[in-house]
């Protein structure tokens, strides 16, 4: 038996050696260096799946970032001015504020080289209003049957009712190449429009934006290429000429790869302990800016004991905003009332509820419910499954409520189940923690949920079920006024004060966006005026001489 041992050891050794070769050889092979120094490449990780590139179906931040770089709009959001001309070089508004005439630039090209025309705008608008999807909701004031193409570069849109948010909402109208889509339509239920190009757009683009889609690999990522004929803004030689976005579902992996120089920046906030890691790295710069994300705890005002104003106030006092803002989130700005100051303008005298357990107890004592009764109510705090910070906030709140003698508990619920529950006062959760990204950047949209109009919307705030006739009247009146006018601002301010006085929800804070990036990259350093518009990549700049840049580009 003995002499065969050698044979066995040999064969075992061989297989181990083979395995080692498998491991080592690729290490030795240089990864295909297909980065070209002359064309700086921006690399970043996406933590959510990109399941469509269709602007109408895009829902998560990753899809949004791609879409807003591939498509252009009539107007461009601007953090200071609201919106600025873009494909539309100018526009006229009728006196009744129900009719908008846009004059389009005539030098804007789609990625296939065809000029953007009014017909494309009309097509895109009809498409967004016809297809199911979120973004259509922002444009619902538009009368779909009265879209008038006046000439190749002029279009008039008519509203069914005055909508102060309309111009800002136009950011959601991505202009698409109608002919390309019609040439590539698939069978569908929209008559002559087939499937409205839904299938095609899932993986292809039909835009006129600064980048076109070079490659989309489902589950892996998207590569964008600079559109050389982009005319609205001139190309800078140090702007990314190519953008490689890779889907990395695990946050920790994405951050590791960023630290390793495989990515240039992160789009989402690292968790507080990990921020330190970037802070401690001299090669990184961290941008911080206040967002317009309104964090609040929605309360179901129809569900006892939350139908009692005193109970709601007590709960508001029991909410430790500073802990949430600074320990759970990485800093923020307190939010008083449903609208952030950045949108509301100066408005003094909004009732606030600073964390104070004594006051909370006092208000609870004033409740029409006895302590025994109060104890019997089961107060569920619905936290969106997977949203860790939501859960931590809930733990804090329920812990404090327990100290007050209330029976509260955190329940992790899927997003779909939350929004489904919110549509009826009987099923709506007592508490839902959420943030509104104030996508349209106008107080009116945020305030809708405090009027009957917003009741039952499949959205966390749809489950507030609170109203006050005075507030409703003020909000309706403000909608008729010129957007941004002092009269309108005053009305919104008064409405906010009245809402805050009855504490229908716990108003928490606006968070701080934290963006770690390699120093050689100059990216947006403030809110882009609408969700994710800070990530228009053509505005990014590289320090192409930085050795780190050169080294990382090769990775």
């Amino acid at each position, binding site marked *: 038996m003995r002499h065969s041992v050698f044979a066995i050891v040999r064969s075992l050794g061989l297989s181990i050696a083979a395995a080692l070769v498998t491991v080592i050889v690729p290490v030795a092979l240089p990864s295909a260096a297909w980065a070209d120094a002359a064309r700086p490449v921006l690399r970043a990780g996406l933590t959510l799946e990109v399941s469509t590139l269709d602007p109408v179906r895009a829902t998560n931040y990753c899809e949004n970032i791609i879409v807003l770089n591939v498509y252009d709009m009539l107007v461009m959001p601007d953090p200071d001015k609201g919106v600025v001309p873009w494909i539309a070089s100018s526009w006229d508004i009728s006196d009744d504020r129900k009719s908008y005439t846009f004059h389009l630039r005539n030098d804007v090209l789609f990625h296939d080289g065809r000029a953007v025309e009014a017909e494309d705008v009309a097509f895109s608008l009809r498409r967004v209003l016809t297809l199911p999807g979120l973004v259509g909701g922002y444009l619902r004031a538009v009368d779909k049957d009265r879209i008038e193409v006046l000439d190749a570069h002029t279009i008039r849109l008519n509203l069914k009712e005055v909508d102060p948010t309309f111009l800002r909402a136009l950011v959601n109208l991505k202009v698409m190449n109608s002919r390309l889509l019609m040439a590539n339509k698939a069978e569908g239920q929209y008559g002559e429009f087939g499937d409205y190009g839904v299938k095609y757009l899932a993986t292809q683009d039909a835009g006129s934006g600064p980048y076109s889609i070079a490659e989309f690999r489902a589950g892996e990522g998207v590569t964008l290429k600079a559109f050389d004929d982009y005319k609205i803004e001139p190309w800078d030689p140090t702007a990314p000429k190519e953008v490689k976005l890779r889907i990395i579902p695990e946050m920790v992996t994405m951050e590791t790869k960023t630290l390793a120089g495989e990515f240039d920046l992160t789009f989402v906030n690292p968790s507080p302990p990990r921020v330190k890691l970037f802070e401690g790295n001299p090669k990184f710069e961290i941008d911080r800016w206040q967002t317009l994300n309104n964090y609040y705890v929605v309360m179901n005002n129809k569900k006892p004991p939350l139908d009692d104003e005193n109970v709601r106030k007590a709960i508001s006092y029991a909410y430790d905003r500073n802990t949430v803002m600074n320990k759970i989130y990485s800093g923020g700005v307190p939010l008083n009332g449903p609208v952030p100051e950045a949108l509301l303008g100066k408005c003094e005298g909004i009732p606030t509820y600073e964390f104070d357990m004594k006051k909370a107890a006092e208000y609870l004592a004033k409740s029409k419910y006895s302590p025994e009764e109060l104890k019997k109510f089961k107060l569920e705090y619905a936290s969106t*499954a997977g949203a860790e910070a939501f859960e*931590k906030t809930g*733990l804090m709140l*329920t*812990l404090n409520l327990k100290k007050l003698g209330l029976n509260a508990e955190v329940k992790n619920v*899927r997003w779909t*189940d939350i929004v489904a529950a919110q549509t009826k006062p009987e099923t709506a959760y007592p508490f839902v923690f959420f943030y509104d990204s104030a996508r349209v950047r106008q107080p009116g949209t945020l305030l809708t949920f405090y009027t009957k109009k917003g009741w039952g919307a499949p959205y966390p705030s749809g489950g507030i079920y609170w109203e006050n006739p005075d507030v409703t009247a003020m909000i309706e009146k403000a909608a008729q006024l010129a957007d941004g006018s002092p009269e309108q601002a005053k009305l919104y301010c008064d409405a906010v004060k009245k809402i805050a006085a009855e504490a229908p929800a716990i108003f928490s804070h606006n968070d701080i966006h934290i963006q770690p990036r390699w120093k050689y990259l100059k990216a947006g350093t403030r809110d882009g005026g609408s969700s994710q518009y800070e990530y228009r990549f053509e505005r990014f700049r590289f320090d192409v001489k930085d050795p780190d840049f050169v080294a990382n580009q090769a990775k």
Partner: protein
Amino acid sequence: MAIVEETAGGVVSRTAEEAEMAPARKSGFRRRLSRFLHNRLAVAGTLVLLFLLLVAMLVPWIAPYPDDVADSLNFDAVLAPPSLQHLMGTDEVGRDVLTRVMFGARWSLAMAAIVLGIAVTLGVPLGLCAGYYGGVLEQILMRLTDGFSAVPALVLALAITVLLGPSLLNAMVAIGFVWWRGFARIAHGQTLSKKQETYVVVARSLGASDLHVMFREILPNISSPLFVSLALNAGYAVLTGTALSFLGAGARPPTPEWGQMVASSRNYLPQGWWASLFPGLAIFVTVVSFNLLGDGLRDYFSEE
């Protein structure tokens, strides 16, 4: 997993050689016990499991920070590394990891118990009937088992859990519902081999009812492989349960379930390695212990 589902003689099977070399013996409890005790790893596994059971029962009294099981936040001690105060450190909201790992033993043992309870209740009678009656019934039942086996357990359990509504209890039910197929196979195979034995034939000729024969005559005689399989499957059930929790379909935070703990602490790797390392280790140790126990039981029950 498959082999364990398939045959009771799975992962480390006792070999024919071992059987052959052992001279003829009178089998008896003592001898079996001594053989079991001789398998030091099996004894170690059993001790670990007993320890876990003890911890699970006594945890509210022995855990260092019993409040940390769920409703506790300590933002001043977030992700504190292991120290004398916190032997396994603290997690992302400052809860004591050791306490939560200890509480987690409850869920994992419950997972094993409930999953196997459901699986055995469903699978064994089905397998018994299939093996005992044979014919068309056997064909149908075994086709059914094949069908269930063709979809990976994790996938089917995941789908059922999600459709029932994600929760730990639903995950247990779903896994149990998926798990019966292995037991059905074993019961079926064993019943087939025992059906012709004298005591069964005698019982039948004496006019005993089918139910009596199946459950009073056959079942006790096929219980050894079932016991071995129970122990081995317990580990895999725990693994599957924690995997479901990791994917977000099982336990939800703040439930201190091990898979869920790894899932919610993984964003703090590598700095907060202790928060995901220890729950993961706990899973590993539990599963290994179940496997060792199963291995020992196989020795215990093995025929000469």
